[in-house]
């Protein structure tokens, strides 16, 4: 630390290379090779201290800038100022005390910390919003074990008059969500995974693979409501076609499986794109090691390539499930809107949690007294989040069981 000035102004001797005789000293070498070990690093307390100072300074700034009469703190502004001050402060101090490379490193490190904090803010905010109201809704008797049959404006009016608590539940929506999502997953994951396997392992950039990549890209841009329309139309024409062949089919196309088809259209591209990327980074030498043992390609793919990429694949699948389990618009058009439990995806209407949430939120049961509906909506949202969390956890457990053991070099 003492020699920091020396670091910045290296003596000519220190920059001369071995072949220095015919080579004039040049800047890069000087910065690459400071001639002192110490003084090139900020002490451990530097970052926390710098952060604390920034927080204080920005606090002062926010108070100064704020309303003179009324003492109020704009949290967002505080965060922004603190982040900026911290970034600049840490950069400048490091630049002055050490050098530009270190300052740059410091700057990006802080920027990444800021990005991370920034990402946490909405998460905390959303989860708080959901959890606070939602938890209250969850405590209502029978919320998870009953459905919405017989629940109407009068029921909520009763709640308003204190005759009873908030009634009604989401059993039907949980079942609907799980059944429909499961079916969509059963369709999409095998198709998506197999397709990415085809793209990575089999196709060698041929026209078919280019066409697939191209169209998968296009599929990522299908608006969900259009997917719903498509699902409904496809099922209706399939049913009338099957009917004309004399195959016994349900009379109506509104049912769980139609929604699953619509969701698959949204899900497949996500599965393909994420898993494709994960398969591509599996090192070729592992494939070769397996081939060299006389293992067939399909076994190599299933037992070497996929396990090596499993954590990425699991993340991708979870992502795709999370992507579709929260869909609203396509479900309404394809699965209808049921108020009671229906386990059968091939007959009758179904409701999913997002549809339920949307309905309770945008069209509360009672025209003017919205509390019970909002409670149901947020509580259902909380359950939905918990379900996806659970799925995520399962995916991760699966991934950990098969994942490469990350030790060694």
């Amino acid at each position: 630390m003492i020699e920091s000035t020396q670091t910045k102004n290296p003596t000519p001797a220190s920059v001369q290379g071995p072949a220095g005789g015919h080579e004039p000293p040049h800047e890069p070498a000087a910065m690459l090779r400071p001639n002192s070990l110490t003084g090139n690093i900020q002490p451990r307390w530097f970052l926390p201290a710098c952060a604390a100072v920034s927080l204080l300074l920005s606090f002062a700034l926010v108070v100064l800038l704020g309303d003179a009469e009324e003492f109020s703190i704009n949290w967002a502004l505080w965060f922004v100022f603190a982040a900026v001050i911290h970034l600049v402060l840490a950069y400048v101090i490091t630049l002055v005390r050490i050098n530009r490379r270190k300052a740059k490193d410091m700057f990006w490190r802080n920027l990444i910390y800021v990005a991370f904090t920034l990402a946490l803010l909405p998460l905390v905010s959303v989860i708080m919003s959901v959890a606070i109201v939602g938890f209250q809704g969850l405590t209502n008797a029978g919320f998870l074990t009953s459905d919405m049959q017989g629940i109407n404006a009068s029921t909520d009016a009763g709640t308003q008059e204190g005759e009873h608590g908030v009634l009604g539940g989401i059993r039907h929506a949980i079942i609907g969500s799980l059944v429909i999502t499961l079916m969509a997953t059963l369709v999409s994951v095998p198709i998506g995974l197999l397709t990415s396997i085809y793209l990575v392992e089999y196709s060698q950039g041929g026209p078919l693979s280019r066409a697939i990549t191209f169209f998968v890209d296009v599929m990522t841009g299908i608006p969900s409501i259009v997917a719903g329309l498509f699902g409904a139309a496809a099922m209706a024409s399939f049913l009338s076609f099957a009917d004309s062949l004399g195959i016994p089919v349900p009379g109506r196309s509104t049912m769980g499986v139609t929604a699953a088809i619509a969701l698959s259209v949204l899900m497949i591209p996500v599965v393909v794109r994420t898993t494709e990327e994960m398969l591509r980074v599996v090192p070729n030498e592992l494939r070769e090691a397996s081939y060299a043992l006389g293992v067939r390609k399909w076994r190599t793919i299933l037992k070497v390539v996929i396990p090596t990429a499993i954590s990425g694949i699991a993340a991708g699948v979870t992502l795709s499930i999370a992507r579709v389990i929260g869909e609203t618009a396509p479900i309404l058009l394809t699965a209808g809107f049921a108020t009671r439990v229906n386990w059968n995806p091939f007959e009758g209407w179904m409701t999913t949690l997002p549809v339920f949430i949307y309905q309770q939120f945008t069209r509360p049961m009672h025209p003017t007294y919205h509390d019970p509906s909002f409670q149901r909506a947020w509580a259902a949202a909380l359950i939905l989040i918990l379900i996806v969390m659970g799925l995520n956890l399962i995916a991760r457990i699966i991934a950990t069981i098969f994942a490469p053991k990350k030790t060694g070099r």
Partner: protein
Amino acid sequence: MSKSITAKNLNVYYGDFLAVEGVNIEIAAKSVTAFIGPSGCGKTTFLRTLNRMHEVLPGARVEGELLLDDDNIYGSGVDPVTVRTMVGMVFQRPNPFPTMSIRENVLAGYKLNGARMSRSKADEIVETALRGANLWNEVKDRLDKPGSGLSGGQQQRLCIARTVAVKPDVILMDEPCSALDPISTLAIEDLISELKKEYTIVIVTHNMQQAARVSEKTAFFNIAGTGKPGKMIEYADTTTIFNNPSNEQTERYVSGKFG
């Protein structure tokens, strides 16, 4: 077990780039053959054609005939997988499977092919293979630890154990000892001497002493210049190659005067 190998006018390409040209060689069954030559001359490339690993790379292809005993492995209707079960390979860089434990790595040839076997049978295979590769004592207490946690040398021996475990007819080794210490090297060399009683062995090495120690015949490869194809310059008994080569390039190379 063990088969002879005959290459007839073999050209090996990477896309349009001819990497190895016109190789003619006859490798006897139950023998050890060493490939030597400067870096980049195509030893690895040629070796990989012997078990059709070459074609795994996109655009890579082979012209000519390559006979395993009397069957052309590049003939039509030949299944490369069958070829590879007959011709095992150990790579230049150790590549244990990162998802598998040491034990599973050794059994990979069986397990990946879906073979079912009793626990005791598997234990026996693991122990035999690891002993053969001189690794048993070092890893016997951590068979269930990941294979990637071993040192470079240990990893390479693990890969040898894995290849030997499936008992192929021919074993190709691409600088198998380049990451090993002398003792392990010695063990592998002993292993090779023992294996050659049953198997045909082809080994690429940069270590002349090793070539001299283990092989009966040696092939010298060379390359005229960058962008030019590699060629097999001379193929003869190892003693001839090292003591009395007929080609001047070979002579200069083995005496270290090259370049």
